[in-house]
């Protein structure tokens, strides 16, 4: 390797918590990046990948501090510079593409003003020239209406477009290094492909070096030359992308890769399943939001949904954001009363709205929400959280209730002494288990799982899926499993409903999604899921007409 563009030596970053305790976040990390090379930082949340990436710009988030080591970027030693000197190189030498472009754009300024702000701050070129350059970048990033898109406000363009616009914002000052901080995590798979393609082509053309922060190995495989695997603020393994994928040396890397292995779900066999009505049946269900006029709401979301879920089976619901997946769960649960159609649980018709349903009806179907953080009351102990449904549904009190709480914790594989803690004292995976245990407290037959693994790291999510399967075997549960992640759905579901714009376009057996999909939208969705293969994106051919029709841009 010639002289590296970036060299990081023994970097140490620490933070002081509110209670005054000192925590080491990055524990002596060293690596180099050659000019024009794209290096991926891979790891789960809390591994320090974003902290390292930001430190390359001389920036640490509130409370954190670079405590040791050296970061060199080109001719500058970032660690030795003053804040004013660092501001000089931000945007010109090194720039940043944020995780959520939607949040990183100032809502009160036009897009163009923000994209060319770097040239204004650093007085790089006159405004006309900057705008011209921005439009060229918009074209290179395959943005529609390149000439006029800059005059819009951020809320007037889609998420995928904003993400590409944020890349244009980073590239306008011709930096030598671009930091991508999980730039596609918030996007739908079909949008992700387009954004990845756009990123890759501008990076290749400009000969820029990049740092690509991600937790998704399959995405990284498409774009990075080299991968650095992080855990607990330390480098676990470092190597060329192909080498990491083919011959991972470190156990943690292998664990990450193993989470990608498709685990096919084996349906459970119950002897008496044939003689009973389906656990959940939905007929001609339509639901929407907004004021109701003539019996129909202002914004209709779900249109005439029909399906049945047999006892002991699992039904996946997939689709992109805005397809109505979560609305379906809310309508079935009665949180959002459908304005037409009916919901039958165990053969019995349910009242449309939650308030009208009897306790027994409520008990049969429970819902688990995506974000355990917001679903668990932060001021209540785990025992109170789990105890409430026990008292409500089963009238349990005192010793009996405590014993049942311990039992529930054991069911979700958590130690009994956790019951005295508050939600904030648990990890993300533990909180999601508590969330699940709360649903189990009602002793339901059906659990509606709304994206329950999406906020979790790959390895933790895999463990939750295993737990769901075990619980199903023990308690004969049925799940309606909503997710945008096709591999998770594959791992737990028997059948899959593909939703698009509030309608079910197809019902498929989960194991044969890729081969059996006949509807063009299902085909597009299935083919858009990144594979652990460095050549996947280059070799991927999608019908442009399909993308035009269904691509969520």
């Amino acid at each position, binding site marked *: 390797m010639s002289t590296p563009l970036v060299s990081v030596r023994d970097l140490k970053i620490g933070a002081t918590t509110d209670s005054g305790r000192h925590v080491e976040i990055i524990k002596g990390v060293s690596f180099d990046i050659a000019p024009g090379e794209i290096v991926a930082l891979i790891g789960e949340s809390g591994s320090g990948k974003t902290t390292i990436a930001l430190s390359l710009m001389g*920036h640490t988030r509130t409370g954190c501090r670079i405590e040791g080591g050296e970061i060199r970027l080109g001719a500058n030693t970032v660690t030795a510079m003053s804040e004013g000197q660092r501001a000089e190189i*931000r945007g010109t030498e090194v720039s940043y593409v*944020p995780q959520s472009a939607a949040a990183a754009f*100032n*809502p009160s*300024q036009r897009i163009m003003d923000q994209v060319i702000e770097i040239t204004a*701050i*650093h007085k790089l070129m006159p405004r006309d020239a900057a705008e011209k350059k921005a439009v060229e970048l918009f074209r290179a990033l395959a943005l529609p209406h390149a000439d006029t898109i800059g005059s819009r406000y951020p809320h007037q363009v889609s998420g995928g477009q904003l993400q590409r616009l944020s890349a244009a914002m980073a590239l306008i000052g011709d930096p030598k290094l671009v930091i991508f901080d999980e730039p596609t995590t918030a996007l739908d798979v079909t949008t992700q492909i387009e954004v990845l393609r756009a990123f890759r082509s501008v990076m290749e053309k400009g000969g820029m070096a990049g740092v690509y922060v991600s937790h998704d190995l399959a995405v990284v495989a498409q774009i990075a030359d080299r991968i650095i695997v992080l855990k607990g603020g330390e480098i676990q393994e470092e190597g060329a992308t192909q080498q990491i994928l083919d011959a991972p040396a470190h156990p943690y890397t292998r664990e990450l890769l193993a989470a990608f292995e498709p685990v096919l779900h084996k349906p459970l066999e119950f002897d008496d399943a044939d003689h009973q009505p389906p656990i959940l049946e939905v007929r001609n269900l339509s639901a929407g939001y907004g004021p109701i006029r003539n019996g129909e709401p202002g914004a209709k979301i779900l249109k005439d949904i029909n399906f049945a879920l047999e006892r002991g089976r699992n039904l996946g619901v997939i689709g992109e954001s805005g397809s109505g997946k979560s609305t379906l769960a809310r309508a079935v649960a009665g949180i959002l009363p459908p304005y037409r159609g009916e919901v039958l649980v165990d053969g019995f018709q349910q009242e449309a709205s939650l308030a009208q349903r009897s306790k027994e009806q409520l008990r049969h179907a429970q819902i688990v929400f995506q974000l355990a953080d917001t679903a668990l009351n932060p001021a209540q102990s785990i025992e109170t959280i789990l105890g409430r449904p026990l008292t409500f549904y089963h009238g349990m009190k005192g010793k009996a209730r405590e014993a049942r709480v311990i039992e529930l914790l054991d069911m979700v594989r958590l130690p009994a002494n956790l019951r005295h803690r508050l939600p904030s004292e648990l990890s993300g995976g533990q909180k999601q288990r508590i969330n699940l245990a709360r649903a189990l407290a009602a002793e339901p037959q059906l659990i509606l799982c709304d994206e329950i693994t999406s906020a979790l790291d790959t390895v933790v999510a895999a463990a939750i899926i295993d737990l769901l399967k075990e619980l199903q075997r023990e308690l004969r549960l049925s799940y309606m499993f909503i997710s945008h992640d096709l591999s998770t759905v594959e791992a737990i579901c028997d059948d899959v409903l593909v939703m698009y714009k509030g309608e079910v376009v197809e019902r498929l057996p989960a194991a044969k999604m890729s081969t059996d999909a006949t509807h063009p939208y299902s085909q597009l969705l299935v083919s858009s899921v990144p594979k652990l293969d460095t050549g996947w994106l280059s070799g991927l051919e999608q019908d442009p007409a399909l993308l035009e029709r269904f691509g969520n841009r």
Partner: protein
Amino acid sequence: MLRSLTTWMLVGQRLAIALLTLVIVSFAVFFATELLPGDVAQILLGQAATPEAVAGLRKAMGLDEPAILRFLGWLAGLLHGDLGTSYVNHMAVAQLIGDRLVNSLKLAGITTLVSVPVSLVLGISAAMWRGSILDRVVTVLTISVISVPEFMVATLAVLIFAVWLGWLPALSYAADTSSFTAILKAYAMPVITLTFVVSAQMIRMTRAAVIETINTPYVEMALLKGARRSRMVLRHALPNALGPIANAIALSLSYLVGGVIIVETIFNYPGVAKLMVDAVSTRDLPLIQSCAMIFCVSYLSLITLADLIAILSNPRLRR
């Protein structure tokens, strides 16, 4: 800047709500004063009056008509700018209030001119250099000012500036107003006291609103584009904090018109608040009602203005 139809509809809606509130408030003001104990005719005629004389006066004043009719008559009068006639000295209420209102508005206006810029500068700079010495000093000062009641501030000001130092006159109105410096002197103490009282809340709210927007990803993004702190705060954080800041300022300023009675009394300043207190002691209903309406209207217009700023500064409503 072109704005969409929806924006104007929201603005219209907000104005309609303000108008409706005003009608409800006028209703409340009228009937609340009706509930005041004591009878005007009785008070006017004194204890020795015969029942016949009281009844006659009541009839002459129109007090024997049903309350709702009197309310409608009063409302119609208000719409024509006729505030009624004082029961006590038979002068037009408008005339009684006129000078006083000008005085009050003068005091409020000067205080606004002093306090709003001071509060904005202090609040924004405290947020900009959060955790610095400046921020801590400002925070401690605002908390102590909020905790001290205004009569205390006013009395202390009189004690220090008028009694000990002898720099300023203790009474504002009686003071000489012939030269500019004399006016400055006359207004100094009421304005200082009021500024103390209203600024503290404005500083705290401004600081909180700006800090909240500083913590957003788009301000961090500005930092990562190489922006200096002043650019981050003034160009990126402040425009998005306008709504809450405008509301905090409106709430604080609305206090200036109605709630200044203590300050007006201590400095013997002839404003509307003092007039209203005098009117209450003489059961001068038309005067009380008019004063109350003035306070409500000023309060309502400030709040409405703040809401309109919040609506118009929200870019999601722009097209």
